[in-house]
């Protein structure tokens, strides 16, 4: 059993700020994350044509890594971090991912040596534990995944991450049905259980190889909900429900740290403000400079307490201003420069608040993720920190309470959002306080309704 968080690393929400964390981490080439400055974390995807062979892939990553570093020294950025999110071949063939990590690290070393630029490298193997129809979380694919982590750690990746998928089979079902108890079960309970297993093992590999177990994200579930919710005018999911999925996800992402992760948390974990309030570990975030990858309604807000600032993903291709990775990395680094100026001039908290206010009332999601409210969600989670069900439920209830209490002249919600919120509130109030009851009720319900749900094989029920 892992040790659960039952208190928060920060005494007050106002103590949190970008660039600083309670427990900074350091890469091999001098990059300190969360130690007082914000650094760009550049993300990229190879062009489809590059996927055909190992050679082409390696060459693609060599080029884009060189491009990014060349641009960074041209503009005078003191530090840069890269994240390689594996395409499926790189994880399924662990030597591919390992070689690519090595090639990238070698380039970083050369630049570090020649210019003194501080560099970090994150590798994020894909969660390949999925058959065509089913999740197969435990078994041969799991072992292959661990092999991949070993290979990229050997290759030189400083930060090890993954976006795990535990619980996704139930979330996919419940997200299209406004089923809030299903969110709690899939994200908070099933997801959390899977995370505990996998992060315990990743930490072991990290320790063995002298690397850093960085962190996870509930991309597979909370981001799915966020994307289905979409923009202000989309009609696929109420944004009040998407944010409930998100706060529940904080309880889940937290498990990674309980099982040994140390940060920087993954960029697309929009729950990371909540998580940072609890763990004090550094986090990556994405937002307005990740429009290349997706659209969301919290572009500035997510900068509020970030330690790495990411573009999520951009396909490698040409633009008038250079290659896509050069363009986006430069914009990211300029954003980081602004934050670092604020820190150096003693205005970090003021800038943080401006970031936050830009999107606090844009959407219920921004309202809850604003660091003061996020901190309150964190408090609700640690109150029952020892129980995955109760803490996820607390997060959901606190979300509903905060939204209900919001100044409705400022956070103006549509009737539709308010109705969904009222329904969620009712569903939450009807929930049991008994974890065992909840777990067995859900087991029964979802076994009946979702044939893809294989509880014994995946969660050792």
């Amino acid at each position: 059993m892992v040790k659960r968080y039952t208190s928060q690393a920060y005494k007050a929400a106002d103590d949190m700020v970008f660039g600083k964390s309670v427990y900074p981490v350091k890469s091999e080439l001098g990059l300190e994350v969360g130690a007082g400055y914000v650094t760009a974390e550049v993300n990229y995807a190879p062009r489809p044509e590059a996927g055909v062979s190992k050679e082409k892939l390696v060459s693609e990553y060599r080029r884009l890594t060189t491009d990014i570093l060349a641009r960074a020294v041209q503009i005078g950025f003191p530090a840069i971090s890269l994240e390689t999110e594996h395409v499926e071949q790189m994880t399924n063939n662990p030597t591919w991912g390992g070689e690519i990590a090595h090639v990238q690290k070698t380039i970083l070393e050369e630049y570090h040596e020649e210019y003194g630029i501080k560099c970090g490298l994150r590798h994020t193997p894909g969660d390949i534990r999925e058959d065509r129809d089913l999740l197969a979380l435990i078994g041969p694919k799991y072992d292959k995944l661990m092999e991949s982590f070993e290979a990229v750690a050997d290759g030189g990746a400083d930060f090890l991450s993954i976006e795990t998928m535990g619980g996704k089979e139930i979330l996919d079902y419940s997200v299209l049905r406004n089923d809030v108890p299903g969110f709690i079960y899939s994200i908070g309970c099933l997801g959390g259980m899977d995370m505990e297993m996998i992060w315990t093992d990743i930490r072991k590999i990290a320790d063995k190889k002298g690397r850093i177990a960085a962190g996870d994200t509930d991309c597979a579930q909370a981001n799915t909900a966020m994307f289905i919710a979409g923009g202000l005018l989309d009609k696929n999911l109420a944004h009040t429900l998407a944010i409930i999925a998100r706060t529940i996800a904080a309880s889940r992402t937290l498990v990674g740290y309980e099982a040994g992760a140390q940060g920087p948390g993954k960029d697309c974990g929009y729950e990371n403000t909540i998580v940072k309030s609890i763990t004090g570990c550094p986090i990556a975030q994405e937002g307005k400079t990740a429009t290349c990858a997706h659209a969301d309604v919290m572009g500035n807000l997510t900068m509020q307490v970030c330690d790495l600032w990411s573009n999520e993903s951009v396909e490698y291709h040409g633009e008038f201003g250079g290659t896509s990775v050069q363009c986006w990395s430069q914009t990211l680094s300029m954003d980081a420069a602004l934050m670092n100026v604020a820190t150096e001039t003693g205005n970090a908290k003021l800038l943080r608040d401006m970031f936050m206010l830009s999107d606090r009332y844009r959407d219920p999601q921004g309202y809850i993720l604003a660091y003061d409210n996020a901190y309150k969600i964190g408090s609700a989670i640690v109150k029952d920190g020892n129980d995955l069900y109760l803490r996820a439920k607390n997060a959901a209830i606190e979300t509903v309470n905060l939204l209900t209490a919001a100044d409705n002249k400022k956070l103006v919600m549509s009737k539709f959002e308010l109705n969904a919120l009222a329904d969620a509130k009712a569903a939450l109030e009807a929930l049991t306080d008994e974890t065992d009851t909840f777990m067995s009720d859900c087991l029964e319900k979802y076994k009946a309704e979702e044939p893809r749900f294989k509880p014994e094989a995946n969660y050792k029920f």
Partner: protein
Amino acid sequence: MDIDPSKILVRYNVQKEKAQTPEELAAEMYPKEEPARTIAAAIFDGEEDDVIEGLEKAIEGGADAIKLIDDVLMPGMKIVTDLYDQGVIFLPNVMMSADAMLEGIEFCKDQSGSVPKPKGKVVCHVAEGDVHDIGKTIVAALLRAAGYEVVDLGRDVPVDEVIAAVKKESPMMVTGTALMTTTMYAFKEINDRLLESGMKVPFQCGGGAVNQDFVTTYELGIYGEEAADAPKMAAAILSGKGLAQLKEMFHKH
């Protein structure tokens, strides 16, 4: 520090919202007579038990179980999808209403012991190598909600399987979903293999990675921007539209 947000952003969703609630709008659309009215309301609310109860009463009152499907259940569901198309209600409501309606259909079939002819059959799939299946699930649900029989091949479906399914099922249309730039090329192959086998079935493709420019590069392809376009296209096919006309209807430029 706080702010009056009115100068920095506009909540266009709130601004655009209709004065009436969805419930009020739906109520105006319910049929006047009973039990159709009660059943339509039960579908709108996604209350399966109430749907069945309403159907039971109707059958007790002498109604033909199979005719109830076309005369009561389908029109009741249409209220829901119309409101969705108008942006008044959201997708989960449609999903829950569809679940309720489909239960109702099952009940009617059981009661009559006979199987009604569906409006048409559609084969749905997600491209090989791609696990992003929520878009496909929505497409399939909306098609079912509109009364079509859906053969859902799932996700990460090899080209061979799609071809085999089309041969076996002879559907009126095929749908493909791809969210990754790497996987969508399978659609071209499916197109070629269908043409080779002489099966000129309209092939509607959508999903995050797919755009109209790509879809127009293969003959059978018709671009689907949003899930609701799938039942619309099925309806257009039923009304006799050919490939060229479908492209004209669903292509934006």
